[in-house]
């Protein structure tokens, strides 16, 4: 039962997520909200792990969510669910590749789909932003604007942004460095 539901949820994500790995993010938030299989906090950890391990991010997240929800069989089922629509759709498209890219309707649809896809990814990024850089709960208690911002985290974010712009390091490096900073300066508050 849980396996059928996992397959169905990830099949949906695979069918409707357009634009690569991070495009599955909004669907994972949707799954989190509607099923309660995992929290937004767990999801942020999954993103971090998926970004810092080899392989496609969407696949890593499906495996992680599947494993967290229903063990090893869950991991396999969620991953196959995510992949199944791609296999079906791409094999169909491969059969008439030439006509596909020149089709006016298809071009038009993508004209609208691309900004929508970016909007969805930006919204998913915004919820990670709220979790990592803001302290909404503390702000609600104290009401002081300075308490709304997690200053330690914001300083780190600015430093990472500058370092990425200047040196363009591998994301794994940036993630490893952030983990060290997090441990040294007790970002988790424990």
């Amino acid at each position, binding site marked *: 039962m849980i396996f059928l539901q996992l397959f169905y949820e990830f099949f949906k994500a695979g069918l409707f997520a357009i634009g690569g790995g991070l495009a599955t993010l909004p669907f994972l938030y949707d799954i989190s909200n509607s099923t309660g299989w995992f929290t937004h906090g767990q999801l942020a950890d999954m993103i971090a792990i998926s970004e810092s391990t080899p392989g496609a991010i969407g696949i890593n997240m499906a495996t*992680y969510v599947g494993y967290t929800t229903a063990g090893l069989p869950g991991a396999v089922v969620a991953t196959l669910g995510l992949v199944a629509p791609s296999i079906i759709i791409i094999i169909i498209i491969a059969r008439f590749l030439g006509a596909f890219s020149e089709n006016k309707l298809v071009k038009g649809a993508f004209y609208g789909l691309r900004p929508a896809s970016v909007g969805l990814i930006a919204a998913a990024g915004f919820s990670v932003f709220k979790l990592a850089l803001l302290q909404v709960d503390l702000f609600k208690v104290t009401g002081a604007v300075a308490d709304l911002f997690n200053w330690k985290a914001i300083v780190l974010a600015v430093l*990472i942004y500058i370092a990425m712009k200047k040196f363009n390091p591998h994301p794994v490096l940036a993630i490893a460095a952030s983990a060290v900073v997090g441990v040294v300066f007790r970002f988790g508050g424990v």
Partner: protein
Amino acid sequence: MNEYLDLFLTFARIGGLTFGGGYAMLPMLQREVVEKRGWATEGELMDYYAIGQCTPGIIAVNTATFIGHKNKGILGGIIATLGVVFPSLVIITIIAAFISNFAELAVVQNAFAGIRVCVCVLILNAVIKLWKKAVIDAPTMVIFVLVFLGSAVFSLSPILFVLVAGIAGIALDVTVQSRKKGGDNK
């Protein structure tokens, strides 16, 4: 049979050595698929990538299916996809098993609080990159803002946005193209 095994192992290697998702996979595909094995030309690879980016699903999976299908038919497409997925399954399952035992540790919590900040910046950079390609005029800007607000503030289902944006895109594209009188085809 041997060729199927070769497909599986090659795509497993590509999946296992790529950090950072679909975009980072392109150089690996160029080396393994185009230069070493000649399963596709550079141009074909770019076409697959372009279609993979704008069709549903994971870009890496879409590209693997294309290349596998081109060389060994439907079964080839499935085997190449299973290959690219296999390392993720193994590695993430091990990590998930490990982390679920140690997620309570202070060190792990602090490390992930730091990593979350980094993920923010990585997503921001990815969004900026995609934004430049997708938001190209006023109508696409409106779609971006509406979808962002609808998703971030009202938590509406992403499927709704994908369907509506696709239909809106077809309608808008027709008006934009006729106003430009076929100006540019890009």
